[in-house]
């Protein structure tokens, strides 16, 4: 077993009285592709969002490359902004709603992190941004405004924006859930292409078919804990837990 890049120990997350994540231990090794599935409200998005500190942890530790994130002083852990920014440079994220910057062109969206965060010269940033946009098949749209693009195109720009930062881990939070059905394929193909490059990725999704082909490991999350973990065959084809079987059966209900 390879040394993990990212490790999570005893993760809890509460929103007020609502206890969403109830003690999760987890690690990601280089090259792993992990699909996280589960019903709505199971906490799968929250879990993903904890990993790049889009949500603050209520309890627990996150370790990146053997170093704990956060600063401990008198038993209190604080998360200085500088540390979190450094984490987010290394752990990229793609959102369900794309979250492109509407006042910037496609190219500017992808250059933004390189120029503002990495302090790169515009010329060099432009070069990299063009390469990433080419990779997601949007070379034609570099000067378009995001608002003029289809949902699938917007999501591919968002993927290029995340890739531009050269992250070691990529988090996908239901990347196709807000897309029209006929646009889902173009985004999944891009993600699949990244899988072929051997990238380390975590994907929260309802596309179980894609999860089956994409993932090296599948996690079924229910009631804020890992209910079942295994290979795609184990979890998606031969689930052992009753909850998992029930979840998959409901998904297959209207299959033809």
């Amino acid at each position: 077993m390879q040394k993990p890049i990212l490790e999570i120990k005893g993760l809890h997350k509460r929103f007020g009285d609502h206890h969403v994540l109830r003690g999760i231990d987890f690690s990601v090794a280089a090259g792993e592709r992990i699909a996280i599935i589960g019903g709505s409200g199971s906490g799968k998005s929250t879990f993903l969002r904890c990993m790049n500190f889009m949500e603050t942890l209520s309890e627990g530790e996150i370790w990146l490359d053997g170093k704990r994130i956060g600063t401990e002083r008198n038993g209190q852990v604080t998360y200085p902004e500088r540390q979190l920014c450094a984490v987010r440079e290394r752990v990229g994220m793609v959102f369900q709603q794309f979250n492109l910057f509407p006042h910037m062109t496609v190219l500017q969206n992808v250059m933004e992190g390189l120029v503002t965060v990495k302090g790169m010269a515009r010329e060099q940033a432009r070069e990299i941004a063009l390469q990433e946009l080419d990779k997601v098949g949007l070379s034609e749209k570099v000067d378009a405004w995001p608002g003029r693009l289809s949902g699938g195109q917007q999501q591919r720009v968002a993927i290029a924006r995340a890739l531009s930062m050269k992250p070691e881990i990529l988090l996908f939070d239901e990347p196709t859930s807000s897309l029209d059905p006929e646009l889902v394929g173009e985004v999944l193909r891009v993600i699949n292409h990244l899988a072929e490059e051997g990238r380390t990725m975590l994907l929260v999704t309802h596309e179980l078919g894609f999860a089956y082909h994409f993932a090296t490991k599948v996690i079924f999350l229910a009631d804020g804990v890992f209910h079942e973990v295994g290979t795609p065959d184990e979890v998606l084809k031969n689930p052992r837990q009753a909850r998992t079987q029930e979840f998959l059966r409901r998904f297959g209900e209207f299959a033809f």
Partner: protein
Amino acid sequence: MNYSPDFSVVLDNWPVLARGLWVTIQIWLPSIALGLIGGFLISQARLSSRRWLSIPSLVYVELFRDTPVLIQLIWFFYAFPILIGVQLTPFTAALLGLTLNTTAYSAEIFRGGIKSIHRGQMEGAKAIGMTHAQAMRRVILPQVVKRMLPAFTNRMIEVAKMSSLASVISVHELMYQGRLLSSTYYRPFEILTAVAFIYFVLIYPGTFLAGRLEKRLARSS
């Protein structure tokens, strides 16, 4: 009606009105500029999750929004000497009053604007490693300014006219000179009409430019 208007009184006293106009500009533009900067800072305090920032800033905003500007100006002129033993000049008192008032209003404009930007914008910015300040400067504020331009323009117009209240604490601005001339020559009709015309000429170019800018910015969305 046997009153015959005679605008020569305006032309004869043009230098007096010009001096007044210059003082008006000196109150107007700085109080707008400082008020915008102050307003942004107060809006950040208002939006902060730290109560020692959010509560005082709320009190400040409400105090200045819910009392008449006229009283605020008079208060800075007459109450300051009593409270801290420093006598402000009328001009400083007016500038301070209008700046603090504009700060309160623009704080609310900024706050509303920032809140109206979808949460995903801040998240999208943070996800590529931006600090809160970088996200504000590069992602949130450009969108806020665009969306809030009509409100800011409105505020600029209000402050230009509000500066005439400074005449009450005898700042020698346009309105003060107009009233002085009126009572000297008993020609309020001609003189105040001229003063109103000067205010219009002062304010209109600003609203015209803001309208043009609004159209230009609208193109990118």
